């Protein structure tokens, strides 16, 4: 790892100031993507600005029909939150399926969302639940936020503060894991809220996380696995790698979507 300067600002404005003054800074949240990349010398930053001491980035709040989660909230805490389990159990399950228990003790929702790894789970949850991303500058809907592989609408220096989830009637997540990395080869997050259905897919899209409108339309007519039997995703939009071809991923999207519908409130892991 190249040399770097570590900071622990106590306030948002302090963090913003350090960022503005530094040559090639990066915000540090859970560090479970950034630090390995720096360790392998694939990334270099003059300054690391640890956001863990900023109070407004932590914890859970229920606001009417929304659940707000602070960006620095760790996966383990989301997975074990009684409030999350009550309001959106599939989200708790999703957080509890990320990485492994040690990773979940450190990794944060904000870090995962801002990184937008094309195989990460949280982007599917946010898009599948129609979440709102609150930053120090503005609010964005998930559909506008995830813009491509490892790309988001965040501007340089902009800090993701909270994620607000509408509370759905039904939500479920099903994922098929890579044999090696254990990331999702395909993960499908489904929610139903006031008759509107959202179906978001991670792990498969050539451009990162995406929604499947044909699945949504089918499920809005009939929220059952059989409604999806004739639905398909065009492999042309999907990625291919050692975990499988784009055709295989297209198949998994259908299978995982059906299994999510079969298991409301749950997160189901396959393989």
């Amino acid at each position: 790892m190249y040399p770097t300067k570590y900071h622990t600002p106590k306030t948002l404005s302090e963090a913003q100031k350090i960022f503005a003054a530094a040559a090639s800074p990066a915000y540090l949240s859970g560090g479970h993507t950034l630090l390995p990349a720096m360790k392998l010398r694939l990334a270099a930053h003059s300054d690391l600005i640890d956001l863990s001491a900023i109070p407004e980035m932590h914890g859970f709040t229920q606001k009417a029909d929304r659940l707000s989660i602070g960006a620095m909230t760790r996966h383990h805490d989301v997975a074990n939150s009684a409030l999350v389990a009550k309001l959106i159990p599939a989200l708790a399950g999703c957080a509890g399926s990320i990485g492994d228990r040690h990773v979940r003790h450190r990794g944060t929702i904000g870090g995962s969302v801002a990184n937008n790894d094309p195989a990460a789970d949280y982007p599917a949850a946010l898009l599948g639940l129609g979440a709102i991303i609150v930053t120090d500058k503005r609010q964005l809907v998930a559909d506008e936020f995830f813009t491509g592989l490892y790309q988001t609408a965040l501007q340089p220096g902009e800090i993701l503060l909270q994620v607000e989830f509408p509370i759905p009637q039904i939500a479920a997540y099903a994922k098929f894991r890579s044999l090696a990395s254990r990331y999702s080869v395909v993960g499908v997050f489904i929610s139903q809220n006031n008759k509107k259905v959202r179906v978001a897919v991670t792990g498969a899209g050539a451009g990162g996380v995406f929604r499947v409108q044909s699945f949504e339309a089918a499920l809005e007519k009939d929220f059952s696995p059989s409604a999806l039997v004739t639905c398909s995703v065009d492999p042309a939009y999907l990625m291919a790698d050692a975990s499988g071809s784009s055709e295989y991923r297209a198949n998994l999207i259908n299978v995982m979507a059906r299994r999510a519908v079969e298991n409301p409130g749950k997160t189901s892991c396959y393989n």
Partner: protein
Amino acid sequence: MKISERAFRAVGKPLARNEDLRLITGKGRFTDDFNLPGQLWAAMVRSPYPHARIRNVDGRVALQLPKVLAVYSGADCEADGLKEINHNPVPSTKYDLKLTGKDGGAVFIGKHTLLPTDRARYVGEAVAMVVAETREAALTGAENVMVGYEELPFVVGTVEATQPGAPILWDSQTDNILVDSSFGDAAATATAFAKAAHIVSDVFHIGRVTGVPLEPRAALGDYNSETGRYTLYAGSGGAVRQKHELAHVLGVEPKDVRVLSFDVGGNFGTRNRAYVEFGLVMWAARKLGRPVKFRADRSECFLTDYQGRDLVTEVSLAIDESGKFLAMRASNLSNVGARCVSLSPLSKGSGLITGSYNIPLATLRSRAVFSNTMPTQAYRSSGRPEVTFAIERLIDKAATQLNMDRFEIRRRNLVAPSQMPYRNAVGSTYDSGEYEINMDKLLRLADWQGAAARREDAKRRGKLLGIGFANYVESSIGTPKERADLIVSPEGIEVVIGTQPAGQGHETSFAQVTADLLGVPFERVKIILGDTDVVSAGGGTHSGRSMRHASAVIALASDDLVSKAKLLAAQIFHVAEGDVEFDDGVFKITGTNITTDWFDLAKRLKELQLEDFPGGLWVRRDNEMHTPVFPNGACMCEIEIDPETGGIEITRYATVDDVGRCINPLIVHGQTHGGIAQGVGQALWETCYIDPESGQPQNGSFMDYGMPRFNNLPFFKTEISEVLSPTNPFGVKAGGEGGTTPAPAVIMSAVENALAPLGITGVEMPATPAKIWAAIQKADRSALAEYI
């Protein structure tokens, strides 16, 4: 010599290990745990190309960087007269099959210099070394060494490398084939094939994997200019071997090299041959006058730990009307990588091509080929899983082709106990074994009776259940020489021996043997390993040799020690030597009530300082034992395939393993468990895939190399069968390789069995969900209607 079971108090007991206390409290001594004052760090500059001429190595920019002290190239090594690592890759005990070059001559192996001067021959080959004050500075230095490369055509595929027109790795050679030997009776085999009612043939590629010991390889070198001695801390499969090989590299006498190899964080064969970094850190320590350390990243380990397997085998069986095997024909091709480090896999496999079966005639062609890949080496059960895969998969195919039950066809052809010792058609002599009894025990252990009901149950859940089966026989040969020093002190007995465990529990099982041979409590025996200034000779640990060789040499040494102790007792008690009797730890003077024991004798000797006993009550014994043993067994597993995803779950796994005498069942079962995981890993997840278009390895971290994990393996049912080998005092065979040997075959047998309703055959390892799913898409899926 004959061992009396009467005296067994420790042998055969599942004693907890002596090694464990330090390892569970964080006090192990692994290579990277050692640091020396003033220590520098080395980093390697590695080739990004599979094949390239090295025009020049320019370290000027790197040398300008802070804390960088030196940049060394192959030319620097050559200028200093460093020699190649003399790997001695051709197995040469009396019982190894004799591999030769194409014309029957010597095998060209390609010199393994520490850094090449001419070409880089695989991606990741070290072409220069940077030494700096810190590891980070060395890595930054390495990034700034400018190497002038001229890319050359390359070949990475095993078969492709043999073909006319393939790029040739070594200028002195006309092609890439370094070994081409034939065994068996070709003419008689041809006659048998001509008469056969059935001929079954197939071609299998047992792909490339890597050992992945969890301790990344590391080395710490030092040089003492006053004594002229080098010291190396490096985990290995045998410090004594490394001492000799590295002395050759450095051009010094072996006595001037000390190698320390204490706790070794996994080996599985990958550490049995010296690595270039070992020689480089010692050499750099001398040049710079300070100790030099190297520690590989995991990604460097994936690229440049010696790799395993990579064998293509073409096999045919000639079978008569009744299902009796008449003859076998095989052609094995081993990809040794850019230079030849070991031919153990090819040799080992060659001697076992007929497997557990009485096949009267066979002919075999064994070839080895260079390619632009990391050299391969023995990897867990070197060579045996490959040939077991070939014969067992071929027999499954024969059963289908002949419409016979797959157990029945095996029973009809297994070597019978009455045929032991059995000389197979390529000349290997199996020492002992009850192969059919293994099968019967296994079918009970695995609850074969309940399989049909389980298959129906799986079907109701939408899963395809597959049952895999394989017999195996493997060979344990290894370096034939071993030495033991037994040293008695008033406190206890020390055994100095030249094996090198990496988790196999030698400090425990050797102590069990010694304790019972000498009639002393297990707790009072201490095993000393791993420092070549203490361990003067020894063959290291590989090929399942250690328990057998150690128990044999300790048994011989114990006899010597008893004789010496009788002499001592005679002098102490002023009686004739013949008047001293020894039984189960007690020395008795005939016709008196005087008795004494080992520790009392040692105490008295210390006080008396008798001149006939220089150095105290101790013996050194060397033993040379060539005769191999043939551990064997049977294995069964059940898997369930999700036809919608291709995902596989292993639901049952059972083995019966004839390990000969089992000294410590706790350890032997543990060896079997770990061996199973490694074999299953190759079948389902692991691969070192090298892209033939770019020559680039595709599996460089745990992100892309699928490992056996907690939640992709079941509990195993393992049963030990003890058919004592007549070849050595304790009747030991070996317990380290039995788990791995049949595992790839048994898993793939289960995969095909599960997919049989769809008529799918020939799925290649690793059988990933994507591959299974793709095969299902191409098949007639009408049979799936009952599942989905």
